[in-house]
């Protein structure tokens, strides 16, 4: 019936408009996929973040009463600030404590000089997660309420009180985007706490409680043991992740038929469905990372 009414079919000029819009969209996708031009679309995104970041922070602030219902431990904004400050302190202490364990295990090998410098040359800036990327966009990212104005830069490590959260992949002046380690695009160098063996952790993309990471060891002969702690491997300031941040614990180990080596499934320490206060690791003023 509707098909017979030709009068409402798109006119020539609106067809041309639709064609133009579709072409622009395809062009943008192309530009963002070609490495040489992807910085243009990133710049576009950073620009949009200047407007949309504060808008999201505003909306997030407006939802605080609802969020508070589930977080009944906090009663007013004064307490919330305290929690933010203490959580970041706690996260730092936790990281130091976990690192202390690891350092003990390899005291003989290292004498820890480089690492200690590294560790003391860092500090945490507390931030709040204000927006989560919807899963139907097929990426696991969150945005923070601080940006380049507060000293945040690309590739900085993001942690919370439990462990590694992700790394900063985009910054505008008042907001930043964090790629979570459970994203399928995320690869983190990890080290087993018990024997210092290294491997790579890849995200599986699940956002809910079953968010897991896959660990492939570099050395095929190593078999991770259940409940072993995995920490970041770090790369002396060249890579995005600082060394020694706890990532997760080995949940199960399995062998793939026809492949050398064992794979392990890692349960991350951080709860990615309830991210709130996080800390961004920045170099301490005056120190060289």
């Amino acid at each position, binding site marked *: 019936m*509707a098909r017979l*009414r030709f009068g*409402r079919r*798109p006119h020539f*000029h*609106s067809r041309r*408009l*639709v064609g133009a*819009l*579709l072409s*622009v*969209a*395809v*062009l*943008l*996708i192309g*530009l*963002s996929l070609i490495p040489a031009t*992807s910085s243009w*679309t990133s710049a*576009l*995104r950073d620009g*949009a*973040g200047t*407007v*949309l*970041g504060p*808008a*999201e*922070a505003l*909306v*997030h602030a407006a*939802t605080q009463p*609802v969020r508070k219902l589930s977080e009944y431990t906090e009663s007013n904004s004064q307490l919330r600030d305290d929690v933010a400050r203490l959580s970041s302190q706690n996260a730092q202490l936790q990281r130091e404590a976990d690192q202390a364990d690891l350092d003990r295990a390899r005291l003989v090998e290292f004498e820890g000089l480089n690492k200690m410098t590294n560790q003391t040359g860092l500090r945490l800036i507390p931030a709040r997660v*204000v*927006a*989560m*990327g*919807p*899963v*139907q*966009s*097929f*990426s*696991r*990212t969150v*945005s923070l309420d601080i940006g380049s104005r507060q000293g945040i830069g690309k590739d900085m490590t993001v942690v919370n009180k439990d462990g590694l959260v992700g790394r900063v*992949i*985009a910054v505008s002046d008042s907001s*930043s*985007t964090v790629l979570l380690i459970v994203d*399928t*695009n995320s690869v983190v160098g990890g080290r087993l706490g018990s024997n210092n063996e290294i491997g790579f952790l*890849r*995200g*599986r*993309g*699940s956002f*809910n409680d079953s968010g897991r990471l896959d660990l492939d060891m570099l050395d095929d002969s190593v078999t991770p043991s259940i409940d072993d702690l995995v920490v970041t491997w770090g790369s002396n300031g060249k890579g995005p992740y600082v060394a020694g941040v706890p990532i997760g614990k080995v949940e199960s180990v399995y062998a793939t038929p026809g492949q050398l080596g064992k794979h392990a499934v890692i349960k991350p320490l951080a709860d990615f*469905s309830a991210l709130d206060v996080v800390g961004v690791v920045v170099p301490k003023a005056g120190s060289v990372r």
Partner: protein
Amino acid sequence: MSSGVRAGVLAILLIALVSVQYAALDLIAVHGVVPNLVLLLTVAAGLSMDLPVAVVLAFCGGLLMDLAPPAMHPVGGWALAMVIVALLAARQRDDAADSPIQGLLTVAACSFVATSVYAFIALVSGAPGLGVGQVLGVILIAVLWDVALAPWLLPSFTKLLPKLLQPEPIRR
């Protein structure tokens, strides 16, 4: 209203919708999937506005979803999906105006197509480790969310949009 004021109102409406979608709806997310407000606005535009207005609104809404933090690459994916949705909805204009069920079916179809188009782009542009089962699950939840919100939001949007952007009645 002058066209400048209309563009401003439209921009504020879209920014508000995208901000709510990204910064507030995670409260009700199911496995991380949230209702797609921009999609509902786009369907409403397709159903109630002239096609050129609807596709431009769809493109702008989609582009904002692509650009708003914490979105990741590729830019243009949602813009493409939303323009297709506006075209689809515009085709259903008469049927959907006749019955609410048709309106819901239109939303379901549009939600399915939009999320699928975006998923296809994400898969082609190399999101490693994305399983087909996982993608289908996400699409299903997304469709259910959009259909669940449609009875509340779609009628308001179809009434609001012509008032905001097109004071003169649509050419019948």
